[in-house]
Every structure is written in structure tokens, then in C-alpha cells.
């Protein structure tokens, strides 16, 4: 990996009044790396991003963006692109007009604007709708145009805040492809997201922020493997209308309820064979499952563990 990181945040502390929102957070990003920042609402993700963007000064610790403090040196922010969660574009303007505007506002030299705008639209695959007003575009196109406006000045660090919230699967895959392409061009990408599937599929590294502290950080597969070893997740789908006695029996089998009603889960190193034995026992107890699934634990499992303070 490139030895020169683009972003180095060290021991960042920040309080709002009495409340400490960041309690000494470290974060380093290298060129050509996708980093997913995870955490519940209020964990401190937004505050950390604002510190990286130079919009607030840490009470302690430091943020270095391309070697300079973004809060003190505006030039440090020249290599930064931010994609807000909302569609931060002018709705009555076309995609091209929007990107042109943000190119000028990002300080792209006048002569280079047409080429820069074209490049941004090519990278985000929005060229075919270049002259359509943004308000007439589908959600997926709007998301990609939103990214295009943030990369027109060729930033070295791109921060995306919930880039796929509220879009369908096809649109999400298109956005993911754009993000991968940018990574392959050497851009460091920081994604703030609740979408754990996206984070697991896309990110080279993930970080869990909990109550202002980075409690876990690393490569997603490695983190999952470390937490779960060779255990598999067994998911049991039951008919609805389970009584308390039934719930007690399921708990006795080591199953835990999930957020989805009628779906219980447990980790087991025995894999498919263990699932077969569990099925037989549940049938004997009169709790015949509608479906049993066996799968590798995902980042979502790990996130639940971390959030519930059962890990890290």
C-alpha cells in the first residue's frame, strides 16, 4: 500500500457542551482504498466527517489532509470531495450545468472545465442524461450525478455520506461500480453508511465507531473470520404465533430472536450437519421450522455484536 496516507486523523477529541462526541479517534486512509465508517446514529460519524472536512476544530488531536490541517489551510481541502446524503444539486439545472457550476466553485481552471465535466460524467455513467434537468432523473441517476459533482475537480479523498440510501438494487450496484472505479483510479474513498451489505461487499477496510470511540477496525472478511472462526450462522424461520413456552424452548436450543418476527438465529461450528440435527429436535418439540438456512456470518452479524457490546 502507498506509504503516504491522504488522511491522518490522530486522537481526535471533540465535545459539544458537556457531551463528548469523539473520544480520541484515529483514522488513516491511503490512496486507492475504500474505507467504510460504521456506527449507530449518534456514534460520532458526522462529527468525525466534519472534522475531516475542516468544518470544526478538534478539542484535542489532529487531522491532516494531504499533509495540512483542513480547518486552518483551505488549500488542504482542494483535494477533498464530499457527496452529501441528500441530492445536493440544483433541480432545475441539467446534470451538465450542475457539474459545470460545481467545477467553477471548486476552482477548476476555466479552460479545463469542459474536459473535467465530461470526465466526471463518464466516470459516473451519467453522460447519456447530461442535458436532462436533475429533477427529471431516476433516483439512481440522481445519486450518480450527486457523485459526479463531487469528483469534477479530481479529489484525492472522496467522502460519501449514505450514498445508496433509498435506491433500488440496480441503482445501488451502479453506484458501487462507480465507487470501485474511483478507487482503481487511486482515489481514497470514505463511505459513511448504515448499509452493512454494501460496506462488506465494497470496503477494503471498515471501522466501527461506538460512542465516539473506534472499537474495531480492519478488513471486513478478516474481522468476521476473527470474530466467528469457522462458525456458521443458522437461521430458523418459524410460523408466526409462537407462545412464551415455545420461545423458552428455542432459547434453550441456543437460538436468539432477530429483528424479523419468526426468525431466530444461532452460530454453530457444525455447519449443515448441526442445522439438520436442530431441525429434527425442533420438530420433536412441535416447533417445525418453515425454513432453515446456513450461511457464513456477515458484517451485519459482527455489527450487531459490536453494537450490543458482545465484541470489541
Amino acid at each position, binding site marked *: 500500500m502507498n506509504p503516504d496516507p491522504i488522511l491522518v486523523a490522530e486522537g481526535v477529541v471533540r465535545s459539544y457542551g458537556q457531551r463528548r462526541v469523539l473520544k480520541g479517534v484515529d483514522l488513516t486512509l491511503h490512496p486507492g482504498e475504500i474505507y467504510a465508517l460504521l456506527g449507530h446514529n449518534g456514534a460520532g460519524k458526522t462529527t468525525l466527517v466534519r472534522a475531516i472536512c475542516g468544518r470544526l476544530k478538534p478539542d484535542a488531536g489532529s487531522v491532516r489532509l494531504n499533509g495540512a490541517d483542513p480547518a486552518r489551510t483551505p488549500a488542504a481541502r*482542494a483535494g477533498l470531495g*464530499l457527496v452529501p446524503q441528500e*441530492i*445536493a444539486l440544483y433541480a432545475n439545472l441539467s446534470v451538465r450545468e450542475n457539474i459545470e*457550476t460545481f467545477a467553477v*466553485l471548486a476552482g477548476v481552471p476555466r479552460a479545463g472545465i469542459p474536459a473535467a465535466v465530461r470526465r466526471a460524467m463518464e466516470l459516473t455513467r451519467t453522460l447519456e442524461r447530461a442535458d436532462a434537468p436533475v429533477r427529471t432523473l431516476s433516483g439512481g441517476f440522481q445519486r450518480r450525478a450527486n457523485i459526479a459533482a463531487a469528483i469534477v475537480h479530481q479529489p484525492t479523498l472522496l467522502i460519501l455520506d449514505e450514498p445508496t440510501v433509498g435506491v433500488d438494487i440496480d441503482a445501488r450496484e451502479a453506484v458501487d461500480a462507480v465507487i470501485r472505479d474511483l478507487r482503481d483510479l487511486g482515489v481514497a474513498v470514505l463511505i459513511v453508511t448504515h448499509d452493512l451489505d454494501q460496506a462488506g461487499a465494497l470496503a477494503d477496510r471498515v471501522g466501527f465507531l461506538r460512542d465516539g470511540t473506534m472499537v474495531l477496525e480492519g478488513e471486513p472478511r478478516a474481522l468476521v473470520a476473527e470474530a466467528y472462526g469457522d462458525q456458521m450462522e443458522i437461521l430458523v424461520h418459524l410460523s408466526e404465533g409462537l407462545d412464551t413456552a415455545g420461545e423458552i424452548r428455542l432459547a434453550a436450543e441456543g437460538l436468539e430472536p432477530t429483528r424479523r418476527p419468526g426468525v431466530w438465529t444461532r452460530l454453530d461450528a457444525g455447519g449443515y450437519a448441526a442445522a439438520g440435527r436442530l431441525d429434527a429436535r425442533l420438530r420433536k418439540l412441535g416447533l417445525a421450522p418453515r425454513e432453515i438456512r446456513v450461511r457464513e456470518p456477515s458484517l451485519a452479524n459482527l455489527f450487531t455484536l459490536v453494537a450490543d457490546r458482545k465484541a470489541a
Partner: protein
Amino acid sequence: MKTRALMALAMMRVMALELWRDRAALVMTFLLPPLVFLIFSSVFAGTSGDNLQPKLAVTDLARTDASRRVAAALLKSPDLRAETAPDPAAVRARVKSGQVDVGLVIRADPAAPGKPFLIVADPSRAVAAPLAQARTQQALAAAAPDAALRRSVEALTPALGDLTPVQSARIDAAAKQLRAKPPALKEDLFDREQIAGARKGGAVIAYYAGAVMILFALFSAMQGALSLMEERRAGVADRLLAGVAGMGPVVTGKFLFLTAQAIVQAVMIFVVAQAVYGVEALQHFALWLPTTLAAGVCSAGLALGLVSLCRTRDQAQMLSTFVILVLAAIGGSMAPRFLMPAWLQSLGWLTPHAWVIDAYQAVLWRDGGIGAVYKAWIVLAAVGATGLGVAQALSRDPQR
């Protein structure tokens, strides 16, 4: 510096394109001001009195020859819109209900001594009563000159003593002659001279051109400045604050656009004012332009400053309504300032409206020079610059 100017221009382009593509807003911005000006000016141009035709209800209780002639003359008069009423109660009822502006009861023979005419007036239409009185006197002189003669003789009797039979006979003969062939009416007391260079509708039209200009300049500027809130909500502000330039050029670009928008609105209003009412805006262009520029700068800066002080769009919307309505009412954009009580007129100087209206009147109506308007220019430009300064400072505050 050049880069920041280009950034501000890019923002002006955004504002212009957004407005151009929102046809409803476009009509509201540029066609509504001249229309509202036309409505206001048609309403208030009448109050100058040059074409007042009060509605008059007449009832004749005397039913003498002279009283019938006076009533008939009033009904025919082109200066009034007179109608007959059956009795004094009907006259009072019509005045009270506003069906007519003023009432006249002919109580006795106009030729006989005493006060034969009773004017029934509504205090809220004060100007109608003296007008009706004057028209009745004219009608008496024109239609019943014999009765007028007899009244004059009656008035002289205390000074001259009783008339001799010969004198009485001469007066009867003269009255008979007057009745048969009334002389052409001549106003022997008054001559009239029009002020040299006075223009039709004049002061009131110049007043309302200025009043509507600043009303709409501020209204449109507040609407435009609300886009700052929209940019905060949609994340455009986040996007730009994460960049090199921040929101500064955005605020500057909006300021320039809103100033230019106010100037275009002013052009629309004054073109109509000149075409329809002959307001001499073109002839006073050298002073009209800086006045318009100062008004535009003031409205743009004030709107941006006020909206920047708000934290939410709801707050900004409420403040905007307050500013547009209350300042306009106090400043004289709705009702003329010269009709307001003195304390309210003084309070008016705290609004840009009063300064703008006064400056336009000075330039276009009073033919004032720079000496008459430089103070207004300074006040308006200072308010605009302060607002812009506040908006710039708050747009940089990263905590907001």
C-alpha cells in the same frame, strides 16, 4: 480574486437559470410588479381630485319652481353622479350604506330667506360634502338665477332698509328676465392657473412607482435569499464548505443576481409608468439609475442578511412575511405615507421603503438634484452592505 469573481458569476448563472425555468416564478417576478403598479396608481391617482365625481342623492321637499330647477340641474350635471331619493330618510340611508357619497335635502324654496339646503355627509368621505355644496351653489346660480338674485336682495335688506315699491317692481322684472334667459355662468371670483410642467397624476404616480418597486424588490429578494436555506437543507452548503471556496462566492453571486433582478423589475415598472402616465424616468435617467441601484443593493443585502440569521426555513419564511408586509405597511408601500399620522411617518424612516419612495419622488416629481437624493443613496447602500456583510460572516461560520 478572478477565480472568486468567476465563482460568483457561476452562482448568478444558477439563480438566473433556476428562475428562467420556473415560469410561474418568472411571471411573478417580472410581470406582477408593473401590474400591481397599474392597479395602485389607478386607485390612488383618483385621490388627487382631478376626476372626482361624487355620487349624490337628492330629495326635494320644497317642490317649488326654483327647487325643481336646482334639482334638475344637479341631475344633469356632468360633475356629479346624482340620483333622486323619495325622502330625507332614504337620502340618509343611502349615504350611510355607502350607495352614495353624499346627500342633499332641499328643505325650502331656494328663493326664500334661510337655509334651504341640507347636506348629508359621511365623515369617512369628507371631500364629497364641500364638493356637493359647491356644485349645488353652481346649480342654483345657473338654473335659478332669479332665486339667487332674491337671496342677494334679502341679504342686503338689513343694510339698505326696506325696498320702495318701484325697487321691488324692478327686481321682479329682472328676476323674470333672468328666469326666461339665464346668463352664461361665469366664475367671477376665481381664475385658475396650472402649475408649469405639472404632469398628469404626478406626485401620486411617482410615489407608487417607487413604492411598488421597493415592495417587489424586497419580496423577490427574500424569495431568492430563501435558496440559501434550501442549499443548507439539500447539502449544497456542506458540499461547498468542504471545498476551497466555501459559501462566500455563493452569497456574493446571489447578492449580484438579486440586485440585477431588482433593477430589471424597476425597469418594467418605470417603463409602464412612463408609457401610461408620462412619469419622466428616462429624462431623469442619470439620477434614476443610482437610485434604482441603491434600492436593489439594499433589498438584496437586507434579504440575504435576514435569511442568514435564521436557523430553519420556517423561521426564514416567517421573517420574510413579516419583513415584506410590516415594513411595506410602515414604509408606505401600501397606503401613502402622507395619509399616515406624524409618528408613523417618522417611524417610516426606519424602513428602506420610505427612503426609496422619497428618493424616486425627489428625482421624478420634485426635479431634485443629487443634493436631494444622496442621503437616501447612502442609507440604502449602507443597509445593503451591512446585510451582505452579515450574510458573508454567517456563511463562513462552520458551526452553523
